[in-house]
C-alpha cells in the first residue's frame, strides 16, 4: 500500500464519521430535553473516533509509513462507526427522510413509467442500503397481507447518507431489485420449481447482478465508485461469496466490463478500482473466478484466527451461461435517462463548475462565444426601440439553460471529489495551529457545501424541467 491510498482510506472514514455527526446534529434539532444526555454521550463517542484518526493522519504527514498499524486503526474505526450507526435508533427519535431523496429516485424512475414500483423511503439502522416490501417481511412472521399498500416498495437508506447524494446511487441498485421482481426477469431465466432449493443461491446472485446492471445503466461509473466507497468500510468478512451475494470482486469486475464495453470506464473509476484491489490484497482475501467456481471456499479472516468456510451449490456453475440472458433482458428495459459517454463529458465540465461553487443543475446548448456574437450583431445594428422583437427574443432564447440529468450531476460530484477532496483533506489536516475539532469542522463545512450544492442541483434541475418552455411535463 502507498501513502496516497492510505490517505484516501482515512479521508473516506473521516467523511463518514463527520456525516454521522451531522446526522446527530439533525437529531438534536428535533430532540426533546430528555434526549440531550444521550446525544452528548454519542457526541463523546464520535469525538473518540476522531481522536483515533488523528495519529495516523499526523504520522503520514510527518513521512512515517507504518501502514499496517494505520490500516488496523482504519479497520477499528470503521467497525466502531458501524456499531454506532446501528445503535442510534435505539435511543433517540429520528428525523424524516428529506424530499430530495425522493426527487433523486423519481428523476431516474419517473412515476408515469414505473408506477407499480413507486417507493417509499425509510432509514436503515445498519450501515446498508436495501429494498423490502411489507408482504415479504410479514410473511416471514406468518402474517399474510393483501396486495396493495403492503406491496409498496420500501427503500432503506442508512442514516449516514441522509444528505449525501453521491451515495444515493445505491438506491438505483435497490430500485433495480424492485423492477426485476416486478418484471419477473430472473424468474423468466430460471423458473422457480418446487423442491429445487439448491437453485436459490443462483437466483439470488442473478438478482444482484440484475440490480447492478440497472444501476450501471442509469448512473455509469458513479455507481461503481460509490459501491467501492461503501464496500471498503465493511468488515473483510463481507469480501467472500455467500449464498445470498456474489463476491464483491466479481461484481466489481462485472461493472468494469460493462463500463469498458460502453466506453464509460472513467479514469477516476480506475482510481477506486485499484484501491479496492490493494485493500483486499492486503487483507489476503482470495478471489474466486466465476468461470471456475469451487464448491467449497475458505478464506482467512485478516483480523482474527477465524477461517471462513462455505459450501457453494453446484448450481452456481450455471451462472456464466445465464448472465448473458440476464443482460439482454435488462438492456431491453426502457429508461428515460441512461448514462452515456456524452453525459460523462459533460460531467467533467460540471465538476469544474462545482469546484468553483456554482450550481450544476443546467448547461447552455450554445457556447457563450456564439451567443455573444449574436448579441453583438443585434446591438450594433439596432438601438432600443428599433430592434425587431422576434430578433431580440431569438437571441434571448440562446441564453436559456437546459436541465442536466441526475447521472451527469452525480458523476460530476465523484469526479470533483477524486480531483480535489483529498488535497483539501490534506491541506486542512496539515494546519499545525488548529485543534482537531476545528479541522473536522472545516472539512465538514467543505463537505456540507458540496453536498448541498449537488442536492440543490438535482432539485433545481427537476423544477427546471417542469417550467422550461416546450419541456414535457
Amino acid at each position: 500500500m502507498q501513502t496516497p491510498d492510505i490517505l484516501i482510506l482515512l479521508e473516506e472514514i473521516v467523511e463518514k464519521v463527520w456525516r454521522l455527526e451531522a446526522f446527530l446534529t439533525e437529531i438534536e434539532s428535533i430532540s426533546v430535553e430528555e434526549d440531550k444526555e444521550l446525544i452528548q454521550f454519542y457526541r463523546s463517542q464520535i469525538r473518540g473516533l476522531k481522536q483515533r484518526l488523528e495519529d495516523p493522519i499526523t504520522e503520514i504527514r510527518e513521512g512515517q509509513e507504518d501502514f499496517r498499524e494505520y490500516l488496523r486503526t482504519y479497520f477499528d474505526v470503521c467497525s466502531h462507526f458501524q456499531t454506532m450507526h446501528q445503535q442510534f435508533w435505539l435511543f433517540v427519535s429520528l428525523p424524516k427522510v428529506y424530499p430530495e431523496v425522493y426527487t433523486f429516485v423519481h428523476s431516474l424512475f419517473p412515476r408515469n413509467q414505473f408506477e407499480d414500483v413507486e417507493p417509499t423511503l425509510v432509514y436503515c439502522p445498519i450501515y446498508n442500503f436495501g429494498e423490502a416490501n411489507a408482504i415479504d417481511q410479514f410473511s416471514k412472521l406468518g402474517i399474510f397481507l393483501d396486495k396493495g399498500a403492503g406491496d409498496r416498495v420500501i427503500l432503506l437508506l442508512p442514516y449516514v447518507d441522509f444528505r449525501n447524494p453521491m451515495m444515493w446511487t445505491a438506491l438505483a441498485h435497490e430500485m433495480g431489485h424492485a423492477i426485476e421482481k416486478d418484471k419477473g426477469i430472473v424468474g423468466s431465466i430460471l423458473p422457480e420449481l418446487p423442491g429445487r432449493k439448491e437453485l436459490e443461491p443462483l437466483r439470488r446472485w442473478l438478482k444482484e447482478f440484475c440490480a447492478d446492471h440497472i444501476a450501471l445503466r442509469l448512473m455509469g461509473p458513479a455507481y461503481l465508485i460509490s459501491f467501492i466507497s461503501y464496500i471498503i468500510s465493511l468488515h473483510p468478512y463481507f469480501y467472500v461469496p455467500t449464498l445470498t451475494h456474489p463476491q464483491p470482486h466479481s461484481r466489481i469486475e462485472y461493472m468494469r466490463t460493462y463500463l469498458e464495453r460502453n466506453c464509460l470506464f472513467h479514469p477516476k473509476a480506475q482510481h477506486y478500482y485499484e484501491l479496492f484491489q490493494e485493500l483486499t490484497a492486503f487483507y489476503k482475501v482470495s478471489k474466486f473466478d466465476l468461470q471456475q467456481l469451487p464448491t467449497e471456499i475458505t478464506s482467512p479472516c485478516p483480523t482474527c484466527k477465524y477461517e471462513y468456510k462455505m459450501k457453494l451449490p453446484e448450481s452456481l456453475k450455471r451462472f456464466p451461461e445465464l448472465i448473458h440472458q440476464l443482460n439482454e433482458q435488462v438492456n431491453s428495459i426502457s429508461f428515460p435517462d441512461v448514462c452515456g459517454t456524452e453525459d460523462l463529458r459533460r460531467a467533467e465540465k460540471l465538476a469544474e463548475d462545482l469546484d468553483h461553487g456554482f450550481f450544476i443543475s443546467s448547461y447552455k446548448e450554445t457556447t457563450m462565444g456564439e451567443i455573444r456574437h449574436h448579441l453583438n450583431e443585434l446591438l450594433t445594428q439596432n438601438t432600443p426601440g428599433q430592434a425587431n422583437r422576434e430578433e431580440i427574443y431569438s437571441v434571448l432564447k440562446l441564453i436559456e439553460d437546459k436541465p442536466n440529468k441526475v447521472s451527469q450531476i452525480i458523476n460530476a460530484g465523484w469526479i470533483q471529489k477524486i480531483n480535489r477532496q483529498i488535497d483539501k483533506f490534506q491541506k486542512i489536516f496539515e494546519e499545525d495551529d488548529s485543534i482537531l475539532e476545528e479541522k473536522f469542522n472545516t472539512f465538514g463545512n467543505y463537505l456540507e457545501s458540496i453536498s448541498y450544492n449537488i442536492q440543490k442541483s438535482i432539485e433545481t434541475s427537476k423544477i427546471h424541467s417542469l417550467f422550461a418552455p416546450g419541456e414535457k411535463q
Partner: protein
Amino acid sequence: MILNEMQIMARLLEEDPDQRIVIIPIIDAKTQFQPASIDLRLGTDFKVIKNVGFEFLDLLKEETGARLDIANYTERIQIPYNGKFVLHPEEFALGCTLEYVKLPRDIAGRLEGRSTWGRAGLQIHATAGFVDPGFSGSLTFELQNVGKVPIPLFPGLRVAQISFYALKDSKGSFIPYTEKPYHKYGGRVETVGALYYKEPEISILRKIHKEKRT
C-alpha cells in the same frame, strides 16, 4: 447606472469570469427578462419560526448557545419539488431563490418583489434587498404575508426580480462581499437564518455585559 435587459445579457455572457454576472439556471428567458431586471424563482428550502417555548432572543449568548437557540426556535422545512408552502396572513418565513447568483466586484444588485405577488399581499424582503458586489450563492427571501388570505407558494414561481447597478468606478469595490472578514452568508446555497452571533459588535457587547455582571 441601472442595467437594461441587453446590458444584463451582455454581463451574463462576459468573457472575463471576474466581470461576469452568473445566474443559474435561466429557465425561460422570454418571460424572465424584464426591461431592467431579471425575474428569480422560489426554491424548496424554508425556515420558519417556532416561538412556542422560546422566551426571547438572547443576543449575548456565546456562539454554541446561540447556535442551539437558533436551532430551537427555527425549523427547516424542505418541500418536494412538486409540493407547496402555505404562507398564512401575518406569518413570516425565510426562503431562498431557486437560482445561484454571483455578482462581479463592480455590480451591486437590488432584490425586489414582483407586482403580481405584491398585490396578493406577498412581501419577499423586509430590509435586506441590497446585494453586495462580489456576493455569490442563493439569495434569501424574508417572506411575509401582509394580506388577509393564505398564499400557497410553489417552488419555481417567479416571485422576485433582481436589478443591477454598475459602480461608478469600473474597477469595482476594493473589498467585495466574500472577501470581507465578517461576511456570513456568501457561498451558501441553502436558506440561512440570522447569524447575529457572528457580528463583531455582539462580541464586544457580550464582553461589556459580562464585565458589568462581575
